């Protein structure tokens, strides 16, 4: 017996994620502009940018290999897959059991490997330094991310994200010190993994310290559009993981179509707040030197480990 309603819900959620991701990015940029006393480009700007990029002619270096051309599609696919696993609107969807949190981190790692290889493929110096820095950040962020997710997994007794969210959403309200530690650690990982401000500056193409932008300098037109879109989906996926773990209230259960409006409203509200918070955080903090990043991520790892230890000590 195939669960058609569930599959329909899954497709709806996946499409929702892909379409809403640029909106979240636009919202974050708009909030940041407001906080910096600028008028801002409007929340729909990322859509216009994607539209414009899709209608341009792609320029590719002569000695680019197949890898360079294929990477944008791989990136987009990875991020879409990851976003399909994260319970955004509903738990217990048919696709959610395809991968647990460890595989989820693995999908992000796969995307990272591809973008780093593509950056080095062209052979420019910017691509090289960008790729190396990305791998540096990545190998430090991954353990912290896993530890954070493990803390939540211990609390709920499962490594499947959808089961974790169900367990956390339906327990009675309690303060979990371990989860508080994990939340701070997750925030730090989110900033590092999505090239946000203390670690990387998403708004610059001019600094020698750029990481993500350095890697995608050689991309243009539809390839660039896919890479940017994938980055937006990645931010969206990370934010929804954060929301799902630390504020899971209001999510729909199974493929319950009646709860859909509430779920969409709750998700939109929580993401809007999270985006505004991210913009505020980016406005008040300054970018680190690249060599401070290991210390930053080391602290994230420390907090995540402490969260786990505190869980074992207090059982909460």
């Amino acid at each position: 017996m195939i669960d058609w309603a569930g599959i329909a819900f899954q497709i709806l959620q996946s499409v929702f994620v892909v379409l809403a991701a640029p909106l979240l990015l636009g919202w974050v940029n708009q909030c940041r502009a407001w906080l910096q006393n600028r008028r801002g480009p409007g929340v729909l700007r990322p859509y216009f940018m994607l539209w414009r990029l899709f209608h341009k002619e792609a320029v590719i270096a002569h000695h680019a290999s197949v890898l360079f051309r294929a990477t944008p599609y791989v990136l987009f696919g990875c991020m879409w897959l990851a976003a399909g696993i994260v319970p955004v609107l509903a738990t217990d969807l048919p696709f959610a059991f395809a991968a647990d949190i460890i595989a989820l981190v693995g999908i992000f790692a796969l995307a990272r490997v591809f973008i780093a290889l593509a950056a080095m493929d062209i052979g420019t110096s910017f691509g090289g330094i960008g790729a190396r820095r990305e791998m540096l950040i990545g190998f430090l962020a991954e353990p912290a991310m896993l530890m954070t997710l493990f803390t939540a997994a211990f609390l709920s007794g499962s490594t499947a994200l959808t089961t974790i969210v169900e367990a956390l959403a339906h327990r009675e309200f309690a303060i979990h010190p371990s989860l508080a530690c994990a939340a701070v650690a997750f925030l730090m990982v989110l900033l590092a993994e999505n090239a946000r401000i203390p670690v990387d500056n998403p708004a610059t193409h001019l600094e020698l310290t750029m990481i993500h932008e350095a890697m995608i300098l050689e991309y243009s037109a539809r390839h660039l559009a896919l890479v940017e879109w994938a980055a937006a989906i990645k931010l969206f996926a990370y934010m929804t993981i954060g929301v799902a773990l630390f504020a899971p209230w209001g999510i729909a259960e199974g493929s319950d179509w009646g709860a859909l409006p509430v779920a969409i409203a709750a998700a939109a509200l929580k993401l809007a707040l999270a985006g505004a918070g991210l913009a505020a955080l980016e406005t008040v903090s300054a970018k680190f030197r690249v060599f401070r990043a290991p210390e930053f991520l080391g602290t994230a790892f420390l907090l995540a480990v402490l969260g786990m230890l505190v869980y074992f000590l207090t059982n909460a």
Partner: protein
Amino acid sequence: MAQQVVNLLATILLIIAFAMLSQRRVLSLIRLFAWQGLALSVSTAIVAYSTGQTHLWASAAVTLVLKVIVLPIVLHKLIDQLNVRWDVETLINVPTTMLVGIGLAIFAFALATPISEMAGTVTRSTLGIALASVLLSFLMMIVRRKAIPQVIGFLAMENGLFFAATSATYGMPLVVELGIALDVLVGTFVFGIFFFHIRETFDSLDIRHMETLKED
């Protein structure tokens, strides 16, 4: 509910202990110390409220006055007079220190779990955290070279001990606590006088110079 809040405050205490371990600026260290005192005071007050132990109210008040207000002011005055307000200590190997700190925390938790099972208090699960923050303050005193961070480490250690007493046995008798509070206050003044002597003798607050006192 009270237990959950105390657990949360204990976790904050532990995180501040780790933050102190990695903090390079003297000024931020003093600020962290004040925050730690505040967390300690609030958690003591919550324990006092939920268990009805009236003498804990007095301990919470003493902690608040002494560790959140008086000692930070004394330390601020001290660093102003010594002119080390903007001092930045060069810490090598912060990540290694942090890893050693995690090791200490695991050790303390493992050590405290069987002990805390014997205690009958509602706050017994935080004994491990108290022990861990004592050990972390020890570690801070070992890795720091300048005199002022060492003294702050010493004071933070007292915070940890106080918390351990609260979580294991609902605090020491009030007379003992007052005595300790007075000792800490007097100790800080004595340390202050020492700082001036150390600096006069060696032209620096780096206590490595004291190793050269030996005549051989």
